[in-house]
């Protein structure tokens, strides 16, 4: 009794896409001195995407299971510490609304999946979870302590739904969503303002910042000519798309749904 392999293939492809987007976000964000940023979240998504693709499709297995155990244990501890720090300022509210809480749950769910895996999948060569498609004729992997898996499923589903609830509708693309106070003062120069406007037209918040960065990198031109817009918008918009809130939310949503699916078919 196996899940159709094409479903697993599609989900593995989605996870690899999430990993690629996360890698792109890390590059596009260009870490700066003194900036803490959210690189840890993108790194987590990158690693989770790769690990989950390997769990779904045996041929995509990369690292030995023990290595993934260690990676996700460290990741869980890291986000646990981040949530603890966040909770000192915001209290128990972080459990529902915390910035790092979903990533703690994702990391813990990954750790659980690797640690609680029972014999059928672990009986391979020890290189990984051997995929769920059963291409080698092995039995479907199952998890110990399924009630923990069930709790994770509900938790993951809740965060997926919360993320979806916060996604703005199409009607907000040119509305208050982009008129952020932090950026309002940043559109001082005429060139930057034009670039910001072009990024806004592209439909992403981070596009404003991306286009501003691009303008600054181009030598701080302030003449709002069409040529500058065209040059800056191409690379700026690529960054904008990668760094947009929707891309981040999309990655989290895809990861949450896929993780819940994997837990369901293994418990």
């Amino acid at each position: 009794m196996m899940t159709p392999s094409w479903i697993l293939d599609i989900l593995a492809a989605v996870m690899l896409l999430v990993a690629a987007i996360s890698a792109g976000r890390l590059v596009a964000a260009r870490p700066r001195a003194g900036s803490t940023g959210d690189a840890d979240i993108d790194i987590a998504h990158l690693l989770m995407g790769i690990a989950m693709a390997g769990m779904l499709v045996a041929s995509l297995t990369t690292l030995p299971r023990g290595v993934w155990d260690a990676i996700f244990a460290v990741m869980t501890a890291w986000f646990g510490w981040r949530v603890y720090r966040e909770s000192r300022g915001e209290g128990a509210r972080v459990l529902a609304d915390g910035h790092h809480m979903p990533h703690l749950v994702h990391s813990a769910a990954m750790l659980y999946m690797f640690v609680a895996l029972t014999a059928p999948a672990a009986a391979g060569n020890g290189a990984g979870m051997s995929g769920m498609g059963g291409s080698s004729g092995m039995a479907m992997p199952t998890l110990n302590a399924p009630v923990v898996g069930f709790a994770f499923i509900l938790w993951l589903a809740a965060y997926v739904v919360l993320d979806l609830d916060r996604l703005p509708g199409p009607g907000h693309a040119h509305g208050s969503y982009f008129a952020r106070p932090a950026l309002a003062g940043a559109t001082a120069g005429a060139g930057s303002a034009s670039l910001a406007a072009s990024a806004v037209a592209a439909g992403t918040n981070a596009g404003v910042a991306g286009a501003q960065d691009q303008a600054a990198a181009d030598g701080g031109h302030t003449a709002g000519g069409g040529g500058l817009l065209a040059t800056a918008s191409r690379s700026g918009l690529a960054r904008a798309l990668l760094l947009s809130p929707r891309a981040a939310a999309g990655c989290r949503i895809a990861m949450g749904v896929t993780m819940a699916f994997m837990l369901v078919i293994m418990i």
Partner: protein
Amino acid sequence: MSDIAVAGGEAARRDSASVATMDSWRPPDARRVLQLSLAVIWLLDAVLQYQSFMFTKGFGQMLAGTASGNPGVVASPINWDARLVEQHTVLLNTIFATIQLLLAVGIAWRPTLRVALAASIAWALGVWWFGEGLGEVLNSGASPVNGAPGAVIIYALLAVLLWPSDRHAAAAPFAAARAVGAQVARAVWLVLWGSLAYFALMPGNRAPQALNSMIAGMASGEPGWLAGLDNHAASLLAHQGLAASVVLAVALALIAVGVYLPRPAARATVVLAIVVAAVIWVFGEAFGTILAGGATDPNSGLLLILLAVTYWPTPTAASAAAAAQRAGAEEARA
């Protein structure tokens, strides 16, 4: 690079990881939280529908099994549907699962809320007939302990009660009344819980060993601790079917009429409803047998809990205004 650009880039970086800070987003009110809870359950249904078992002929056979005992006019379409599913299992099950996924996404995403809730009502009614055989209410097999009147019909009820309309918001004593009004909402509650009380007393459910065998049967395939709970509960109810059914029916009848009582009593009623639903979900339904595999939904217990929460009495806008006026007057006197 200018400071401005750095500041903007960092702001965007922070935002990229947290959509929660979007300006246009408003924190959910009580009803929105309940809608999101419904979306979570639809999402759970969707991932359950993608389980391996659902892609086998066993799924079609499971559907066919719900026709048993139903009148011909109900059973024939079920059998036709079951045959169709057996012939095109992978395609149809993928469609079914994806529809449920889209319903979850649609309810969770605000711009599509109305469309998704409306679609969920239509889908739930279809599944109630073709997937649950109308919850066995027509074939004497319905019991509140095993999921009557069909878990999926409660999805439809919730979609109606949580419809994003505020025509009756000013006088709504609970969230479920905001869209349809207090009278309609109370009537829905009375019919639902009253029917559960009725089902509890049906001959098949009040037989000496009925509850015992029903609960003991849930232990199969469950984790040890849950199987132990079920077996223990079953042994407590051995040969006590009639007494247990009467107690359950009385509790359900009290719950049914409780929403017509004054607010403190209504609150106690809702608490009782939540407790009874939780007991049913754990002992009678074993969490919808999700932990044993092969479940298509979490069964009725979880949905009854959610439904009960939508009836939690809250101050109406009018009573809150009156209270504020009284407080103002007392302050003025002081």
